């Protein structure tokens, strides 16, 4: 069954690639993504109490951590499909067809990552996420979009090349330890027997290589550019789930590296994580483009997840998965709201958007709601996940980590709020375009879990988060 999820996205891509399918392509994408989400939800439900689904031993396997990620990717894929329907409706049939074929292929590459257990294949699909999204980033075909796509491609492919060497060295280490079971579980089983020098070099190469793709500071240069130029539904996918899917790979390997105490994985994770959170919170203060604003917030959230993973306690692991969920849900909503503002205002410049509330109260409300949600305001889902991280850090007596995180989170929150409120209020001077219904529907659907999971976490979701935390390692 788990193979069906990426397979549906692939079928949708093939259908959209058929000539003369232009106007039907958005419908096919929405239908395909909805079925994908429904199946992913069912898989998550069946794995919420733990266990593993095995389709091909050593190649295609999924546990609850993979199931959480799969469901998140499928949800954002569905809402992004809905948003794309309204957002790009004015384009001609050929471009529409190309967009949707590419969009579904991009979703296929991401949906495959949590389904796989063999590290070599995982690396191939991580590289494919870049290759299949480059032309989506450059979709507008302006000089700026081409520049953004080029930077995105070059930096993340350098990262992929560095990471492949790390993957090969890890395989070498496993081989030296007498095994060829190059899967998540195989590596963890033999972690203690892996030669230390090889594990050390593999750790550095994988952290740097995948870190470039995740957008960890100082390898984040591509991220604000790509997110400011790509169409908003693509930004939602890139920012909401692509970065999270690659971070998932590093988190999966955490305990393999942690088996070498001299490597101090926890310290590395917290230093890189806190640096990312800190630098991003200051960058948020000086952003002039509201899509870049949310891009910097992604860098902040990736740092937060990495810092949470550095705590190495059961509570910290649940908080890590919770933050992954909260980030994906809230960040995709933010980019839909940003896309709605772009439709209404026709500009990405914060300074040129004033009086949004007077012009379009719905869009202004969604934008403010998104900013508050991603900033961590109560009672939204990010508030609870950030609180869980801080509480875990305090429980583990990591006081410096807790204090620094609190400072940076508060700084980022006020930075976001300051920028967004200047756009909402003020003198009304916008061109007055209307928001397509499909865009409004996508925003409404995306907003539901952001608020619901903030005030009430259903038992099934809590069980899934707990099992995913256990799968991560420390319980």
């Amino acid at each position, binding site marked *: 069954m788990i193979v069906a999820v990426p397979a549906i996205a692939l079928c949708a891509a093939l259908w959209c690639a058929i000539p003369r399918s232009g106007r039907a392509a958005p419908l096919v994408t929405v239908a395909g993504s909805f079925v994908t989400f429904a199946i992913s939800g069912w898989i998550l439900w069946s794995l919420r109490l733990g266990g593993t689904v095995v389709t091909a031993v050593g190649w295609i396997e999924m546990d609850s951590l993979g199931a959480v990620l799969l469901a998140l990717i499928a949800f954002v894929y569905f809402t992004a499909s809905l948003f794309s329907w309204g957002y790009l409706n004015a384009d001609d049939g050929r471009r529409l067809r190309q967009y949707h074929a590419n969009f579904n292929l991009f979703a296929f590459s991401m949906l495959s990552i949590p389904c796989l257990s*063999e590290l*070599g*294949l995982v*690396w*191939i699909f991580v*590289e*494919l996420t870049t*290759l299949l999204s*480059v*032309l989506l980033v*450059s979709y507008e*075909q*302006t*000089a*700026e979009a*081409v*520049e*953004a*796509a*080029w*930077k995105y*491609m*070059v930096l993340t*492919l*350098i990262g992929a*090349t*560095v990471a*492949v*060497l790390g*993957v*090969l*060295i890890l*395989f*070498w280490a496993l*081989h*030296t330890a007498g095994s*060829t079971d*190059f899967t998540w579980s195989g590596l963890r089983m033999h972690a203690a027997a892996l*030669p230390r*020098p*090889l594990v050390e*070099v593999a750790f550095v190469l994988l952290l740097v290589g995948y870190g470039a793709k995740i957008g960890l500071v100082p390898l984040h240069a591509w991220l*604000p*550019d790509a997110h*400011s*130029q790509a169409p908003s539904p693509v930004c939602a996918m890139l920012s909401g789930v692509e970065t999270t899917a690659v971070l998932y790979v590093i988190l999966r390997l955490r305990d393999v590296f942690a088996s070498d105490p001299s490597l101090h994985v926890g310290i590395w994770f917290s230093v890189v994580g806190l640096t990312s959170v800190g630098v991003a919170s200051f*960058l948020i203060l*000086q*952003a*002039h483009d509201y899509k*870049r604003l949310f891009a910097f917030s992604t860098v902040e959230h990736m740092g937060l997840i990495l810092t949470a993973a550095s705590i190495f306690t059961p509570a910290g692991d649940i908080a890590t998965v919770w933050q992954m969920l909260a980030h994906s849900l809230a960040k995709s909503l933010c980019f839909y709201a940003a896309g709605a503002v772009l439709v209404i205002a026709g500009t990405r410049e914060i300074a040129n958007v004033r009086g949004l509330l007077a012009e379009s109260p719905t869009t202004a409300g969604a934008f403010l709601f998104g900013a508050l949600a991603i900033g961590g305001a109560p009672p939204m889902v990010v508030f609870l996940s950030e609180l869980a991280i801080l509480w875990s850090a305090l429980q583990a007596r990591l006081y410096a980590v807790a204090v620094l995180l609190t400072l940076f989170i508060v700084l980022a929150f006020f930075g976001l709020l300051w920028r967004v409120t200047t756009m909402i209020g003020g003198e009304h001077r916008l061109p007055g375009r209307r928001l397509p219904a499909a865009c409004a529907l996508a925003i409404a659907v995306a907003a539901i879990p952001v608020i619901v999971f903030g005030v009430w976490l259903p038992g099934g979701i809590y069980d899934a988060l707990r099992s995913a935390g256990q799968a991560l390692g420390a319980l």
Partner: protein
Amino acid sequence: MTPLGELNALVLGFFIVATIAMTVTRQVGACLQVFIVQSLLLAASAFLLGAVPFSWHLFALGCVTLLSKALVIPWLLRWLVPGEIYRKREIGRTLDTPATLLAALALTFAGYFFAQHLVKAAPNLSAGNVSMGFAALLVGLLVLAVRVEAVPQLLGILAMENAAFLAGIAIAPDFPLIAELAIAFDVPLLAFIVALLTRIAYRRMGTTEVGALSTLRERSR
């Protein structure tokens, strides 16, 4: 050292020279030819290492490298990227030739000595492949740093990938599937997409000097 090992050492020497040559070759077309030579040398090293003891993984890797990197990628690039870029234009660089060569030599030494840390962990493998792989990886990064044209930048990425696999064939000769699949599908796809992006850049901006693009940045207030 066995005769095959000696031959492999010679191939590795030429491999690093070819990678350094990619940093200083002035014409885009010549840069592509040097990349083909580098790919042929990677395939040769795979055949030599896979001969004794026989490894069908390494032979498959060598064959796929020949097909993909020495034939398909050059054909794709010639087909999709406007011909005048290869014929007329010289490459602008961010560093002049002597400085680039010095930097390449420094990176070669750095990569070589860094790899010694790894080689000590497993004395039986082909240490030369690991050392030269790391050195060429760093020099490949230099290609990306000094080139401003789109095609040489792509070739820099592919040169880095060749370098990673040069080390990979020594440390993981029976690696399950990844190397063959990656080279057979990922790399031509990469070349195809980059060539398409280069075409778009050329059509929209009249130039393929992607390294000189710098409009997207935070403005100081």
